[in-house]
């Protein structure tokens, strides 16, 4: 904005005169080092004692230990897996990896959908339309008050109320809704699709570049050139062109009812649907409140000032209010993302095989409870820390906007 920034934090710090470390209790630096060594040493001793003691007791109770079981053939059946799995050859390590991927499948999709639904509900509750605002309020108050496990069981039972595969509900060609899940047709993946995907990535880069140049032009001239036709060309036209140039292969694999169930196509299992649906609906009620509080935290003067400039209310929300509200929204949102991820462990109740389900089967078949629990802890720790890191980074970026 204005010219010279004088920030005392950026001024070179005047270095204190260097002093030799004296081995005396009156030297604060020496004291600090001593205390830190003592604390670290105590923690290390306690950890060492616990590990030693556990190992000795497990040996005394003749319980198998170690992680060698990860390389053994699992033999446990798994209902749905993102990567190939065959109980006769796959190992426990691979089974646990499938569990991790299944957890991530719920967490990632759940977080995205809950954010979208929650944001819409939060905005709806502030709507000037009486009916929309009340409906949103009722949704939030009811969903928030019911235990999430109960909701999951409800959705799972509800999905089992769908007809059998033979009488399945058939809304679109190739789409079947039955108590065995949702069957959808899949397009057979061929090499040109990889090229089209590469073209799409190039398109994304192009769109971002164009959008930046549009912003620069807007700052220079006050007129923003249209972005969407270029984006459409980059994101849709370019990949389609590449795909068409490579012969436009398009073969759809349709689900067909054969014997007990459908073959071909892809399945979204009732277990996965119930878990994702339940978690999204539950978490979105909290996110709605967070979004509402974030929007209300922006002073009314901001709305009025933007209105005075002639902006429409949608533009005000997008350009003025939400960017400021995000600063309030992001930290509690992180907690909700972590909650959703951890709540996904309730999957065991409805038979979805997430990391907890597979690890507990593994620990039961191998008898190695401590290793199994450790695996679960490690997985949740890694997922949670990743979410926190990502959100903190985003939060730091948002916070810098404040002047």
């Amino acid at each position, binding site marked *: 904005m204005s010219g010279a920034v004088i920030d005392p934090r950026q001024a070179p710090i005047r270095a204190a005169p260097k002093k030799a470390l004296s081995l005396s209790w009156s030297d604060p630096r020496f004291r600090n080092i001593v205390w830190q060594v003592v604390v670290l040493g105590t923690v290390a001793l306690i950890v060492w004692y*616990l590990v030693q*003691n*556990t190992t*000795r*007791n*497990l040996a*005394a*109770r*003749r*319980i*198998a230990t170690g992680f060698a079981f990860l390389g053994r053939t699992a*033999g*446990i*059946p*798994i*209902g749905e897996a993102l990567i190939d799995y065959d*109980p*006769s050859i796959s190992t426990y390590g691979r089974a646990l990896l499938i569990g991790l991927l299944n957890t991530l499948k719920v967490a990632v999709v759940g977080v995205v959908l809950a954010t979208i639904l929650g944001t819409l509900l939060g905005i709806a509750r502030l709507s000037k339309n009486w009916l929309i605002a009340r409906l949103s309020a009722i949704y939030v108050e009811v969903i928030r008050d019911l235990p999430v*496990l109960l909701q999951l*069981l409800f959705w799972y*039972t509800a999905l*089992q*109320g769908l007809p*059998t595969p033979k009488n399945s509900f058939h809304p679109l060609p190739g789409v079947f809704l039955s*108590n*065995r899940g949702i069957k959808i047709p899949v397009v057979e993946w061929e090499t040109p699709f990889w090229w089209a995907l590469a073209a799409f990535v190039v398109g994304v880069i192009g769109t971002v570049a164009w959008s930046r140049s549009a912003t620069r032009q807007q700052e220079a001239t006050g007129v923003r050139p249209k972005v969407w036709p270029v984006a459409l060309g980059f994101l849709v036209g370019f990949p389609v062109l590449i795909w068409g140039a490579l012969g436009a292969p398009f073969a759809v694999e349709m689900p067909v009812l*054969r*014997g*007990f*169930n459908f*073959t071909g196509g892809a399945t979204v299992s*009732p*277990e996965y649907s119930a878990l994702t649906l339940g978690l999204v609906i539950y978490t979105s009620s909290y996110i709605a409140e967070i979004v509402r509080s974030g929007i209300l935290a922006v002073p009314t003067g901001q709305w009025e000032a933007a209105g005075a400039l002639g902006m429409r209310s949608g533009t005000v929300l997008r350009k003025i209010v939400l960017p400021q509200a995000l600063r309030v929204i992001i930290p509690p949102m992180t907690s909700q993302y972590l909650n959703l991820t951890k709540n996904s462990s*309730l999957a*065991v*109740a*409805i*038979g979805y*095989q997430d990391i*907890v*389900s597979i690890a*507990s*089967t593994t*620990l*039961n*078949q*191998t*008898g*190695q*409870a*401590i290793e*199994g*629990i450790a695996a*679960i802890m490690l997985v949740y720790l890694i997922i949670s820390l990743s979410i926190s890191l990502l959100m903190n980074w985003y939060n730091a970026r948002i916070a810098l906007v404040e002047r």
Partner: protein
Amino acid sequence: MKRHILSGAMLLGATLAFAAPAAAQGSGSATIDTIKSRGMLVCGVSTGVAGFSLADSKGVVQGIDADTCRAVAAAVLGDVSKIRFVPLNTTNRFTALQAGEIDLLVRSTTWTLGREANLGLLFAGINFYDGTGFMVKSASGVKSVKELDGATVCVQPGTSTELAIADYFRLNKLKFTPVLIQDQNEIQNTYLAGRCDSYSTDASGLAAFRFQQGPKAEEQVLLPEIISKEPLGMMVRKGDDKFFDVVRWTLFAMLQAEESGVTSKNVDEMLKSTNPDIRRLLGAEGDLGKAMGVDNKFAVSIIKGVGNYAEMWDRTVAPLGIPRGINNLWNKGGLHYPPPIR
């Protein structure tokens, strides 16, 4: 729902907390000492399988597993009522025993090498010979497991059943989709709702489930194939041989009583019997009970409390319509063969 995690955490806590494994004490058995000082046997059973362990309308747990527990309580404490049952599911049962939450596990658990080698636990005997079976709805028209190619099968995770099914389908080049739910009622409801084409567990468990359907039992069919051996028995912790002996010989005493014709009704008269086998069993002669570390007349307490094996069977399993079959005594064409009590 999360009890297996809890037990796992408790096992972790228990192994962390105890500075040293319990040292040998008075009776030579840490478990018997604990039971006696507590005045009560703590026994792990299922969360509800008719015929094995299921609470009746008065809240009393009934079934062959529950009665096996009671017999052990009678042997150690001389009283069948000094017992507390802990309901466990298939995935938390072993950790509960390992962590010392329970003294004894009688939860239709299959005796396998893997379990004895890895878990630090030991099977003390077989109280029921079983095998993995399949149930389908009669409306489906399925007559054999071989027709189940491509079917969805409901099964509880962490069981020997889930491994047996995976092996069987692989061997016969059939495909199946598992639906795995820990809670027994939940998996049964899921099967009844039509999520699965078939429900698989031990054949006895299927018979019990069918029996519980009451008038709707006709809608369910047990397929003829029994695809695995499932010897179900009592489990104790390794390293306590004396308690192991008591549990093992409790069952043998019940089988021997059946073989010798001793019942809960005639046990008092049988004490006056001249047959040396019966006199040794009932502790009227010799000091075998004392040598084992329990009351010399431990078998009398057992037989008075729960009866012999046949009485226990007739009271618990027979009403479900399960034939005695291989669970008969060896001299009646079955597999139960108690070693001599002498």
